[in-house]
């Protein structure tokens, strides 16, 4: 195949890579993006999107299944689920989005080439695709190869030991599912499977589930897991497995055998840097991740890295923002990574939104803060939706009331993240949010009330 040259070559068409390519092409930069799989990356194919589809289906099923004790007076026959159809529906969404991304790339004039890329040097990449091997040289190259689920020592993926990718592609709901890792991926899939009828056991090595959050935040999630019949074993490590059984050992040395048809290992994600030929480049690494500066530049001039290969937070929206920034840099504009913080959402039940500093992290950084927490128990809209668990919490500097962080846990709070993000990024003070009329009756009133509470003037609590 003929060799190609371009101004910008993006390796990987995940959320970071395709956004980077679209933006660069929009700015008139001749751009090629190389992808070995379908465009959209982990997020779209085997992550955010299919998991949210699964969670939605599970929620719908569970809602009807648990109507039996509904105070609303609704009576229904026990539902059944044709899981094959659910999977088909989920795949339909993924396909639509695959096509959508490919079309967006095309519309913006970015060229999508199928194949796996490997660096020859800092300016040239060898692409091995269905049509053969070709060499693409570029003035700037962006590494956006993403990440893959981490394996556990002694329990490689295969057979009944599955990754999150496999879990989202199961043809049927396992009767008994063991989830190794109480982080957000394990809990999202575990909760959905429990709602679909699986007997789920979560094994967490740490003190509690969702170790990055404080107890106030995780407590409503833990409580609901219990209501769903999910068994959570903390301070417990997976030790191995045999057919239909997971062997675990607790911190005090107690060994248990957990019956499990499938074992989901969700203990983190590893950057996908192995098959790109990074050895041909002289990049500096930070642990397993590629080190970047505040312009996503690596140690080599003209070589950028974005998304999961650059480490935490391994989130699609961070990769997208990085991709957009790099595209503009390559197009000759002045850009720098100056975001105040990156939101994180867990689609557990209830959902968690985390933006900026928590009271604990503020304390660790030596910042004097005031906090205000407003429970959804006191929110009219939450009552009418039968979901009163959780709260909104705001963290602000004590001296000037600048909002440093907002956290919320509760049903549907992921949609409040826009307000949280805007408040922090725009540099709002408690008084700004407290002085903004929030529509009634909505859960968003919780944010206003939390700020009022921090100011000592809460009205509804």
């Amino acid at each position, binding site marked *: 195949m003929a060799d190609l040259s371009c101004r910008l070559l993006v390796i990987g068409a995940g959320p970071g890579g395709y956004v980077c390519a679209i933006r660069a092409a929009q700015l008139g930069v001749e751009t090629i993006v190389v992808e070995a799989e379908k465009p959209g990356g982990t997020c779209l194919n085997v992550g955010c999107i299919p998991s949210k589809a699964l969670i939605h289906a599970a929620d719908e099923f569970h809602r009807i299944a648990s109507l039996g004790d509904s105070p609303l007076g609704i009576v229904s026959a026990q539902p059944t689920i044709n899981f094959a159809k659910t999977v088909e529906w989920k795949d339909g969404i993924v396909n639509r989005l695959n096509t959508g991304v490919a079309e967006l790339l095309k519309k913006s004039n970015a060229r999508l080439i199928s194949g796996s890329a490997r660096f020859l040097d800092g300016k040239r990449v060898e692409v091995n695709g269905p049509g053969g091997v070709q060499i693409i040289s570029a003035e700037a190259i962006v590494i956006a190869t993403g990440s893959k689920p981490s394996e556990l020592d002694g329990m490689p993926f295969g057979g009944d030991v599955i990754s999150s990718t496999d879990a989202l592609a199961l043809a049927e709901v396992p009767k008994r599912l063991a989830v190794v890792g109480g982080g957000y991926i394990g809990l999202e899939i575990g909760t959905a499977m429990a709602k679909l009828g699986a007997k789920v056991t979560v094994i967490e090595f740490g003190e509690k589930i969702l170790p990055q959050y404080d107890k106030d935040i995780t407590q409503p999630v833990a409580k609901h897991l219990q209501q769903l019949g999910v068994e959570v074993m903390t301070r417990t490590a997976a030790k191995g497995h045999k057919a239909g059984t997971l062997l675990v050992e607790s911190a005090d040395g107690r060994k248990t055998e957990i019956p499990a048809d499938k074992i989901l290992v969700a203990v983190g994600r590893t950057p996908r840097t192995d098959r790109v030929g990074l050895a041909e480049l002289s990049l500096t690494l930070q642990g397993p991740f590629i080190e970047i500066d505040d312009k996503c530049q690596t140690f080599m001039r003209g070589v950028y890295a974005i998304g999961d290969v650059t480490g935490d937070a391994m989130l699609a929206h961070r990769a997208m923002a990085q991709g957009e920034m790099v595209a503009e840099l390559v197009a000759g504009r002045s850009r720098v990574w100056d975001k105040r913080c990156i939101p994180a959402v867990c689609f557990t039940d209830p959902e968690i939104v985390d933006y900026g500093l928590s009271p604990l992290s503020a304390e660790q950084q030596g910042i004097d803060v005031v906090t205000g927490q407003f429970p959804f128990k006191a929110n009219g809209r939450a009552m009418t939706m039968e979901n009163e668990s959780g709260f909104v919490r705001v963290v602000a500097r004590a*001296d*000037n009331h*600048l909002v440093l962080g907002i956290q919320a846990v509760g049903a549907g709070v992921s949609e409040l993240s826009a307000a949280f993000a805007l408040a922090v990024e*725009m*540099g709002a*003070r408690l008084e700004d949010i407290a002085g903004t009329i929030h529509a009634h009756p909505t859960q968003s009133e919780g944010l206003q009330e939390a700020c009022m*509470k921090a100011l*000592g*003037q809460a009205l509804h609590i």
Partner: protein
Amino acid sequence: MGIYTVLMPDVGEGIAEAELAEWLVQVGDKVREDDVLGVIMTDKAAVEVPSSVSGVVTWLGGEAGDTIAIGAALIKLEIEGDGNAEETVGEQTQTGNTLISAESESAATPAEPATRPVQELTLSVASRPVAPRRGEGEKPLASPAVRKRALEEGVDLRQVSGSGPAGRISHEDLDNFFSYAPVAPEKSTRGQNTDVSEIKVIGMRRKIAEKMALSKSRIPHITIVEEVDVNNLEELRAKLNQKHAGERPKLTVLPFMMRAIVEAVREHPEMNAHYDDESGVIYQYGGVHVGIAAQTPAGLTVPVTRHAEALNPWEAATEVSRLAAAARDGKASLDELSGSTITITSLGPLGALVTTPIINHPEVAIVGINKMNIRPVWDGQQFQPRKMMNISCSFDHRVIDGWDAAVFVQKIKSLLETPALLFVEA
């Protein structure tokens, strides 16, 4: 029995905290209503804090020298009947000591019974924030759009001050920065400087300006410049300084010039005078009060050496340096800065070749001393290196004719060139 908490009073607008200067009571003391409990200092005044109740002191909110926020608990008293606070309230407000601001309402009315919930009270203590300056290493606060614009315009937002809440930098702040910011050095290393600084002419500078305008606009000046051979004078000066080194003040040219003026004025009393041009009267003075122009940090002043005719060179030198020091330190009295009858002006080593001194109104003459240096002088047969010094003297031409002025200058010249004449009684 109840606990009554006295809060740090609001001692004035804009004051967020005050220093506890002194306690007048101790724990265990009985106090009556209106007894003074302690004294607090603000940067303006000392304020006594009276007790609004009678009771026994149970707790003091700090030691003398501590700085305490307005509205924080200052002292607690055990009183008959209900107090104004639960015990926990006191502890909570105690932590409020570290907060800079406070609700003025609670401070202004310390007697208000605090039935509000504990948490609300502590929060209200923090509810009026003062905007601190951006700390070292802290990121400037600005919306994404402002950040982007700054980046594209090449502005480091750390250099821009924000007028918004919590010091947030707005688009307007950026506009202001652009209109006032100096031209970036890399763009033009020798750019035009269009800065205009506005400096109000006030105080001392205004006085000087008025005085100069008066002198220069009212008095038609005639200036005569003459050169003086000061070899003999310098020789004498050096000998005297050597002889009395360490015992007497070092003599500069000034005491000799003062002496020369005294001697010259003896023959030309019209030079040592005030001309009241409004009433058309000239006052000639017997005593020679020599004003000596002196540069001070605040500007030009003219301290006056009185009765120079009665002083020997060392007395004159002592007086001149005393007055100069007093003027420089701003300690000269009004008396020492007025009443001169003739003035000497000298720029010392900066003395220049020629100056055109401005007469110190209402005087009629001023003697300017220029720089001394060695010049070649033709002695009739050859050039000789001689120490030469110019004197530039201005006269009020309304009352002094050119001829008289020239004679006066010549007299001074001859006295300085033959310094023995200075000390020979006529």
